[in-house]
């Protein structure tokens, strides 16, 4: 599917709003992330819980309606289940705790001017790059889906 310049601007705009919300809600704040994992701060549980509680019925209705704003059929892939869900999830959770950032907030923190976040992005890119290069080997060891399916686009 080709993306028009107007749609690219839409994605930049939507990302900007997303970044602003992550920045001001505590989702991109080291202390709030540690507070969540220490089970001392409700803020992030409230954010994620509300997001899921509102998105779930919205998504259900949108899928039933079945069309995008242009009338095209709504299409997206469900994520495949595999052993990487657990192993990858455990590694990511440790990384989220160490840095205080999940993927979106890494970029938000760099934008905010937090210099150490650049190192988090560098590590993330090296980690993602290593995963891609090692995929043929990991596929056998962990019985991951074939490349055409992948672990899940997310």
């Amino acid at each position, binding site marked *: 599917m080709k993306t028009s310049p107007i749609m690219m601007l839409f994605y930049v705009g939507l990302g900007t709003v997303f970044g602003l919300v992550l920045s001001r809600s505590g989702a991109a704040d080291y202390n709030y992330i*540690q507070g969540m994992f220490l089970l001392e701060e409700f803020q992030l549980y409230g954010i994620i819980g509300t997001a899921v509680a509102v998105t779930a019925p*919205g998504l259900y209705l949108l899928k039933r309606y079945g069309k995008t704003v242009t009338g095209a059929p709504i299409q997206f892939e469900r994520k495949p289940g595999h052993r990487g869900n657990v192993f990858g999830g455990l590694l990511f959770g440790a990384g989220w705790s*160490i840095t205080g950032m999940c993927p979106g907030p890494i970029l938000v923190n760099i934008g905010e001017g937090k210099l150490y976040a650049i190192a988090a992005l560098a590590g993330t890119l090296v980690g993602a790059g290593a995963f891609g290069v090692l995929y043929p080997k990991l596929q056998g060891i962990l019985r991951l889906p074939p490349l055409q399916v992948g672990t899940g686009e997310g």
Partner: protein
Amino acid sequence: MHLILTDAAPIHWAFGGAAISAITLALLYIGNRRLGVSTGFENICSLVVHTSYFTRESLVSSHSWRLPLLTGLLLGGVLSALLAGGWETTWALGMFDAEFGWGNGGKLAWMFGGGLLIGFGTRLAGGCTSGHGIFGMSNLELPSVISTVSFMAAGVVTTNLIYRVIL
């Protein structure tokens, strides 16, 4: 508790969650895309790494929406800082500074190490907080529930090890 960036309280969690939900649904209704940030790191990698994994069609064809979305996330951080009274660089890291007391070099190494786990882990899991935690859970996808339980559990264990056991 105040945010490190603004030294002010965050917005209410219900408003933050509702806004993220609106963004998720707008991305699907207007762009016909499923929310997810971590694959965007593969899009960046594929600009310089040309193995079969990084040249696969499903990845290359998503450059034109994932890279703009990632750019927006960065700009959102810039805008947030500007609205808070001016953009400036900082090394402030909240309770890490209070408990570890490390210099800038130590922080860079710590962040790089954590980043390795994020990059490798999210791609192995096939998603992160947005793709699994928000979209996948909202769509009642079992792999997303399993991934979300895994990364939340690992986060709880790691932070408790760091701040309650080691320090």
